[in-house]
C-alpha cells in the first residue's frame, strides 16, 4: 500500500465527479424523499401525509412478499454462482491458446444487453420454438415457464447463472493468476494436499477479488429488473415479481407516487445497509489474514 500524502487541494480534482454524481443522484433522491411524505389528487396538488406511506408499506403484504422473493433469489444466486465460478476458474488453463478462447467466450454473455438476455432465454425456453423447452417437452417433462411458478423460477435462475457466473469466474481467475509460482513450489516441497493449497494459498489470494464478486453479484441480483420482466413479466401470478418490478409497476404503471417513493427509499436503505455490512466484514477478514498470515 502506498503511503498517502495529506493534501486538501485534492478535493478540486474530485469536485467534477462529486458535482456530476450529486446532480444525478442527490436531486432525484430528494424528489423521492419529497414524494414519500406527500399525497396528491393529481393536478400537482400535494399535501403532507407524514409517515403514512412508510407505515402502510411496513404492513403491506405485497411489499413483504416481494422482499422475501428478492432475498430468496439473491441467496440462491450467490450460493450457486460463487462456488461454481471458483470451481471453473480453478479448472481454467493458465497458458496456451485456451486462455483467450476461455476469456472471450466467457465474457460474451456479460456484454449482451439485459433485455436481449431475457429475449434469448424467452425464446430458448419456449416449448414450441426453443431448444431447451422443446427438448424438455420431448423428454416428457412438463415445463412451461409462463404457467408454472417453479419452472419460471428455475428459468430465471438458470438464466442468471448463464448471464453472470462468468463475472465470478473472471474475477477468481484474475486472483489465481496473481499467485507466484514459488508459492506452489513451496507447497509441493511441504507435501501440501490439493485442499490445503486451496485453503491456505489460493483462497486468501482470491479474497480481494471475491469481495468484489460477492458485492457486485449481490447488488445486481438484488436490483434485477429487465430479465425477469422480459421473460415472465413478473408472473405467473406474482411469483417472480421482484422488488424492482414491483416498484416500477407501482410508480410508472399505477402512478402511485407516494407509496412508490416510500418503497424506493426503503429499498435503497436495505441495499445500502447490506452492502455496507458485506464491505466491512470482507475488508476486516482481509485485514486479519494480512496481519495473521504474513
Amino acid at each position, binding site marked *: 500500500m502506498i503511503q498517502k500524502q495529506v493534501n486538501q487541494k485534492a478535493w478540486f480534482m474530485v469536485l467534477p465527479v462529486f458535482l456530476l454524481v450529486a446532480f444525478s443522484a442527490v436531486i432525484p*433522491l430528494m424528489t423521492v424523499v419529497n414524494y414519500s411524505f406527500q399525497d396528491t389528487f393529481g393536478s400537482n396538488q400535494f399535501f403532507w401525509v407524514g409517515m403514512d406511506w412508510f407505515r402502510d408499506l411496513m404492513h403491506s403484504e405485497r411489499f413483504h412478499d416481494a422482499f422475501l422473493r428478492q432475498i430468496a433469489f439473491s441467496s440462491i444466486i450467490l450460493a450457486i454462482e460463487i462456488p461454481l465460478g471458483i470451481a471453473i476458474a480453478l479448472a481454467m488453463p493458465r497458458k496456451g491458446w485456451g486462455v483467450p478462447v476461455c476469456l472471450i467466450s466467457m465474457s460474451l454473455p456479460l456484454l449482451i444487453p439485459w433485455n*436481449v438476455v431475457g429475449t434469448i432465454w424467452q425464446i430458448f425456453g419456449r416449448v414450441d420454438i426453443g431448444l431447451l423447452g422443446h427438448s424438455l417437452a420431448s423428454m416428457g417433462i412438463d415445463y412451461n415457464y409462463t404457467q408454472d411458478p417453479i419452472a419460471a423460477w428455475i428459468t430465471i435462475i438458470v438464466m442468471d447463472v448463464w448471464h453472470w457466473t462468468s463475472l465470478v469466474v473472471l474475477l477468481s481467475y484474475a486472483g489465481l493468476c496473481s499467485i507466484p509460482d514459488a508459492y506452489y513450489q513451496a507447497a509441493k516441497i511441504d507435501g501440501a494436499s490439493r485442499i490445503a493449497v486451496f485453503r491456505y494459498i489460493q483462497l486468501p489470494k482470491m479474497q480481494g477479488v471475491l469481495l468484489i464478486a460477492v458485492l457486485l453479484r449481490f447488488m445486481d441480483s438484488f436490483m434485477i429488473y429487465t430479465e425477469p420482466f422480459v421473460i415472465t413479466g413478473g408472473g405467473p401470478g406474482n411469483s417472480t415479481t421482484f422488488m424492482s418490478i414491483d416498484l416500477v409497476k407501482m410508480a410508472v404503471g399505477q402512478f402511485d407516487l407516494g407509496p412508490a417513493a416510500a418503497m424506493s427509499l426503503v429499498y435503497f436503505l436495505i441495499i445500502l445497509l447490506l452492502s455496507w455490512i458485506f464491505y466491512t466484514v470482507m475488508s476486516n477478514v482481509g485485514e486479519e489474514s494480512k496481519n495473521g498470515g504474513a
Partner: protein
Amino acid sequence: MRWKWLIPAIYIFFLLLPIYWLVNMSLKTNDEILSMFTLWPQDLTFANYKVIFTDASWYSGYINSMIYVSVNVLISVCFALPAAYAFSRYSFVGDKHLFFWLLTNRMAPPAVFALPFFQLYSSIGLFDTHIAVALAHCLFNLPLAVWILEGFMSGIPKEIDETAFVDGYSWPRFFVKIFIPNIASGIGVTAFFCFMFSWVELLLARTLTAVHAKPISAIMTRTVSASGLDWGVLAAAGVLTILPGALVIYFVRNHIAKGFALGRV
C-alpha cells in the same frame, strides 16, 4: 487432473448454446421457425437482417445507442481520471466517505431513479435527447470508472510522480505526458466497462427517451408487443446487439482479467 479442461469446456458449451439458438433463428424464415423444429436453418435466409438494415425505425436504434454510449464513455473517463488520481495519491478530508458514497451510487437500483430522472430531465428540457441518457448512465458508470482507475493507478509506483516533479514537470504536463501513457491499459479497460454497462442498461434509457433517442433495446421490447412477434427479425436484432460487445472484447482481451477485478489484482 487430466480431464480438468472438461469443466471450462462444458461451461462454454452451456454459454454458447442459447446464443447459437438465437443466431440459428435469425437465419430462418418465420415459417420455418413456427412450423418445424430444426437444429440448423434448412432454408438459409438473410431477409431478417435486411429488414433491420433498411428500416429506419430499426437501424436508428443502433445509432442512438451508439451515440449515448460514446458520450457516456467520454464523460465518465475524462471526469474520473483526475478524481481517481486524487483518491490513489492523496488523503484529504472525507476521502473514505466520499469513496463509499460513490460506491453506493453504483449500488442504487435504477428502478428507484427512473421516475425522478424522467421528471428532472423533462423539467430542464433534455428529455428524449442522447445527452440525457448519457448523463443518467453516469450515475453508475462514473463511480465505477473512479473505482477501476483508482485500482490501476495505485499499482503505479509513486516514485514516477516524484521523479517527474523533481525534473520540473508541472502537474498537468506530468499527468498528460507521463502518467496517462503509464495507465493506458487501465483507461482502455475503464472505457470498456463504461461501454459495457451503458450498452446493456435498458430501464433508464427507455424511461428517458421517446422517439429521437430511443435505444435499440427499447425498440426491441416495443416490437415484441406491437407487431405480432416477428421472431426472425427479433432474433436478428438480438444478434446485432451482441456484435459490438464481441468486437470490443477482442481489443481488451489481454487486460480483461485485470479489468474485471477493477484493477485490483
